[in-house]
């Protein structure tokens, strides 16, 4: 084994793979019959999805009153889930686009899965703006289409209209990005598979890809362009989501820090989710040699860094509120920390600022079980962050007369569970039908890595190639 080359990071891929081996390894999960774990996972996910579908159907049939929202707290679980899922999605784009621009080769092992996660998370997120409105069947009115009302257009000043454009753009660009990245792998599948429906689908979707160098050249340019566009996009989307709150007059929402704060939080939660999924996938799909300890370590460090940013945002928010001398602002933050929702606030702080501190220790970062548990806790914490921002700001605002509590109903909880069901259903199907690792990219990155290694340590490399 050639990991310990002096002066070099350990290799990206363990086990001295040949190109053919990579193809076989990555395609193995989609070519063999799925195991019991997959079926069990799918069953659980589908059950959750079914429960969520039932909850949403009931809510749409009966009314939004089946949620716990009320006159003062008009948004709660629905928008919390929306922001949570959008945030989850951001890590995928970050890994695939930002790290691509930064030439972080290690991303190739995880970017396909992370992008898929983005796609599914945005799907989950996109459900909430639709179902949380009082008349979902009229949600299409948010789109500015020609009509017989004058025509009456939409209010482009509303952050919700911005959201509509931002989230749709985000979904379309993410899906495109994902699909473009998938084309060479679809071609690989097309050429490997036995004749059948799946092969025909792969053939149809691979667009006649033949690996021509001319196409590769253009392809790489477009991929770079997409990465270049997706990077500001990912920041803009969460910035706009944060403006849903920041442009409002409500104390606790009306804060200029929200955009960077939300973006950092989104990356933070997304990274944690990627870690969670990655750790499961590498075991279940037997990809330990592709998703190595090094990947986990790097990701954990990123989580640590973003946790610091989020923690700083919490402090800044508090400081600004106190320093402003605005009694309403001051109260909102004291109320968060000590009011009826203090438990949610301290869950958030504990999970998002306290728990990730453990990642300072290398031993923690390399203990996969611990990393798994901590990443889950970060996700819990980030869900609560959105809950705290939305609910605690609304439940006690300016006029004490309209202060109110909020208790979620079983419908809301089931809807949240349902989106997890949707997410994991999509994810499991993705693992089953699409290469979870970008084969072509991994090959390219591995070869480059190997060539660099050879240049630096020819002896070792000779040995390795042999």
């Amino acid at each position, binding site marked *: 084994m050639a990991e310990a080359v002096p002066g070099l990071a350990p290799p990206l891929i363990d086990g001295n793979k040949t190109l053919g081996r990579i193809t076989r390894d990555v395609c193995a999960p989609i070519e063999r019959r799925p195991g019991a774990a997959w079926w069990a996972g799918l069953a659980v996910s589908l059950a959750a999805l079914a429960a969520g579908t039932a909850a949403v159907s009931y809510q749409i049939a009966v009314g939004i009153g089946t949620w716990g929202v009320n*006159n003062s707290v008009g948004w709660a679980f629905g928008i919390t889930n929306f922001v949570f899922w959008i945030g989850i999605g951001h890590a995928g784009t970050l890994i695939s686009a930002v790290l691509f621009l930064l030439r972080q080769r290690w991303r190739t092992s995880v970017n396909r899965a992370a992008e898929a996660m983005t796609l599914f998370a945005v799907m989950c997120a996109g459900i909430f703006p639709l179902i949380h409105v009082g008349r979902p069947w009229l949600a299409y009115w948010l789109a500015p289409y020609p009509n017989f009302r004058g025509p009456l257009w939409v209010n482009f000043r509303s952050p919700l209209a911005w959201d509509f454009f931002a989230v749709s753009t985000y979904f379309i660009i993410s899906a495109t990005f994902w699909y473009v990245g998938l084309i060479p792998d679809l071609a690989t599948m097309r050429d490997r598979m036995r004749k059948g429906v799946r092969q025909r689908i792969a053939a149809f979707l691979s667009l006649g890809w033949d690996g021509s160098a001319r196409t590769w050249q253009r392809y790489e340019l477009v991929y770079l362009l997409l990465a270049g566009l997706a990077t500001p996009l990912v920041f803009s989307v969460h910035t706009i989501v944060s403006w849903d709150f920041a442009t409002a007059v409500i104390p606790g929402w009306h804060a200029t820090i929200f955009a960077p704060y939300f973006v950092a939080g989104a990356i933070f939660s997304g990274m944690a989710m990627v870690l969670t999924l990655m750790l499961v996938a590498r075991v279940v799909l037997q990809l330990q040699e592709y998703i190595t300890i090094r990947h986990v370590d790097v990701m954990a460090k990123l989580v640590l860094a973003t946790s610091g940013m989020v923690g700083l945002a919490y402090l800044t928010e508090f400081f600004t509120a106190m320093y402003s001398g605005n009694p309403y602002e001051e109260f909102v933050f*004291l109320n968060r920390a000590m009011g009826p929702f203090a438990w949610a606030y301290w869950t958030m702080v504990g999970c998002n600022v306290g728990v990730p501190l453990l990642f300072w220790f290398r031993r923690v970062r390399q203990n996969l079980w611990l990393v798994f548990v901590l990443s889950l806790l970060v996700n819990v914490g980030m869900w609560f962050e959105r809950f705290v921002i939305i609910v605690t700001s609304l439940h006690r605002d300016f006029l004490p007369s309209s202060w109110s509590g909020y208790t979620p109903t079983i419908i809301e909880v089931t809807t949240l569970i349902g989106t997890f069901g949707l997410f994991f259903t999509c994810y499991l199907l993705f693992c089953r039908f699409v290469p979870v690792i970008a084969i072509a990219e991994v090959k390219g990155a591995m070869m480059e890595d190997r060539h660099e290694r050879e240049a630096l340590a020819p002896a070792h490399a000779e040995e390795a190639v042999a």
Partner: protein
Amino acid sequence: MSRVYWLSLEQRDLAGSSGGAQPEFLEAAAGDPSRRDFLKLVGFSVAGAAAASCSPAPVRQEIPYVAQPEGIVPGDAVSYATTCGGCTAGCGLLVKTRDGRPIKVEGCPDHPISAGGVCSVGQAALLGLYDNLRFRSPSLGGAQTSWPEIDTALMARFDAIRQAGGAVRVLTPTVHSPTLRRGIAAFLASFGDGEHVEYDALSASAVLDAHEATHGVRAFPRYFFDRAEVVVSFDADFLGTWVSPAEYTRGYALRRRPEGGSARGWHAQIESRVSLAGGKADRRIALPPDEIAALAFDVAAIVEQGSGGSGLASELAQRLMAAPGRSIVLSGLQDLPAQVACNRINAALGNYGRTLDIAQPSNQRRGSDRAVARLLDDAAAGRIAALLVWHTNPVFDLPGGSAVSKVPLLVSLAERPDETSAAAHAVCPDHHAFESWADAEPVAGSYGLTQPLVRPLGDTRAFLETLAAWSGAPRPALDQVRETWRDTVCPVDHRGSDFEQFWAESVQTGYAAGDALAPAEVRARSAAELDAALMARPAVSADAIRLTLYHKPAILGGEHAYNPMLQELPDPISKVVWDNYACLGPTLAARLQLATGGVARIGTAAASLELPVLVQPGQDEQTVAIALGYGGQITERFQGFGHHWFRSRPTVGPNGRVGLNAAPLIVPDRGLLRRHAADVQIAAAGRTQPLACTQEHHTLSVPANLSFGPPAPRPIVQEISTAALAAAAPEADGGEAGAHAGGDLWAAHPMPGHRWGMAVDVDACTGCGACVVGCQVENNIPVVGKDEVGRNREMHWLRIDRYYMEDESGLHVANQPMFCQHCEHAPCETVCPVLATVHSSEGLNQQIYNRCVGTRYCANNCPYKVRRFNWFAYDHGEGTEQLASNPDVTIRSRGVMEKCTMCVQRIQEGKIAAKRRGEPLRDGEIQTACQQSCPAHAIVFGDLNDPSSEVSRLSGGRRAYKVLEELQVKPAVSYLKIVRDARPAATATEIAHHG
């Protein structure tokens, strides 16, 4: 020129407006039975019929009149003047009817008693008219029957009683209708032993009895609060429920308005619980009921001596003695010594004839507790052969009232089922007040007319006609009323040929003045002449826990408990809906380890109840207060009320009714039904029963543990001291007016035409809730039930925020009507993605229901939290109840946001009317529903672009401020600061002398 009020349909030709006869119509209106079907055609009704055809449009039918009556324009509303039948106060109403159905109750602005104010009960009477539960036909022995049959059956029984010489009683509340008094007298005259017994669920029998003792006349004085510089109320909630609150509120507000010019009144309230009047008082003292009686006695002693005393009694006496002839002392205690003490004070100060009048008394209370107690004794002993019960429910609201069921012939004349009608042998349902002719004499010499506004919805019959039929001389109610008016009401010089003119004018205005009465010589007896027992200082049972029973402004004695709108009107003080409860002071509650919602067992010698507790700041710490009027049988209708889904909770309590009946706790005591008791046992029952309250936090300050340093009250309700107001320079008020008038980031949109705005006087508002119900009726706002209110989803567009404030002068209550502020920089508008809420060119924040998709972003971003969302498809009534909807306001579907529109339908109507007239709109021509109903005149609507409008003057005045002005949202609604009277007694005296 003053308003023209339309006459009733029948009297149309007498108005002189049109002489032409329209035979078809008059014939029909006269009630020709062969043309009863005409009713079905009345109204320009559009019936929607879903057609199961391939037609591109759903087939809707349009059904015109067969012959259109003259003077009726389909789609145009007309107002008819009438008198309210909600209680015995006799307020004047203008009822707006459209296409043959009443759709809104308004106050009659020129009425001598109420002057435009209507309380919540009056506003909600419309629902009573259309109530599906009303009796639709008479019934005998539980079986439906017809009027001829029941008349035959009952008259046979009456004949038998006449021959046997049996006793016949007619049990009613106070009857001040001269015609009805005649009718009852005529009916009873045919019996050897007939008696008309009056009793009031909200009894003020002690006031009448005390005047019998002190003045020799059993009369209820008429109070003139507008003339009173000093008011000392010993537990009389005269702004909330006591006798004639709309009338008293008007006078009280008039006297206290700083802009009014006269010296501002000073008011001390001594009470056990927190009442509306107590909340407004300058000085509020919490004492147990028996100590209040003792205090009244002490004050009387000091005032009669002219000096002496100490402590509280002396302080009050000083204030009173500084305003002789310009003060009112009153008590709501059902306690003779306390009432006698009040009379002595008023007499000693020379108030009789000035601020209160016993020579031309009020008729609003005539009931006698003694008489009804005797009636119950007789009934229990089987000494009564027949009992007619009209508009009262003795089985429900009298302790031992079930004795009436022992009467061999119990006849109920109720409008809808109650406990007494359930026990009755015959039910002969009366018309609703809006269906029949009647009259009223709420104050001696001042008369009101009640006229039918709609053809009776069921086969009911006016009580007047029923009595006439049973007296053997059936006559229409109209004839009876006209006869009375011709004989007695009409001033002597107008009787004869002038009568028709007098009658037409009276029908048009709804009221009339009779002959000027010669002031009766009523002399106060001296202390020496009084019974010694009345002159003894009332005993005080120290350290015992006392009970006081009270009434809520909307439910009163329970006769309005059928009405969902009134049940859902938050209690002005506790803000709780759909329940009664035991109010405990915070210390007492802590001692008993009870919190709001915990159930307590409360027992007296007579009865015991298990009620949820409400911790009430400001309440006397030795007194438990429980509201009467709850737990009636009629409230079983609310089982299943509200929107159903799998987690919905019932509106009724565990007993299947709304609240519990506390009437068994009333203490019959020496001829009075005492609503307070000593020696009450109270203990936690160990379970909870949540109350639905529209307000969770009750002060303007945040909780102390959520604040750095002592929490300062938020400047949402602002105060100004009398001194600052009197000071010449405006700087003196120390306010921050204009402090936030910063520059705008962008140019304002011009509003060249009208710019609508409002001014709300927080100082005048008593929190009674009339505006809330007025708004609800006008704007088709659904009633959502206890569960939804408990989830903070009440739908009221206008709510009254109540904040407690406490200082050395006791607990004060600030009532702030809060509704859409129509901000110029409305935060809600910017965030709506679909342009469902935008600004009008006249400054209105418009909400377009049909465009709304229901994101609720606007509600979140509203700093005032005044937007209301249709969480479910709320119920808007069924059957006849749907007729109560205002046809000018869209019924909102589920998933849609709604809020105050400043009654834009009225604005449109007013503008179109002005355009058709070809004249500009006059200030005050358009009145919003809340403004119209407010007895305190605390709400003013108008055009801010017109510098001479009342709203402009008030908004630019010294007291004006805007709520959350610093947000720069620029509300169109100004609030007027509360005036705090910081004058010490001496200064007050001086000011009073000036006045």
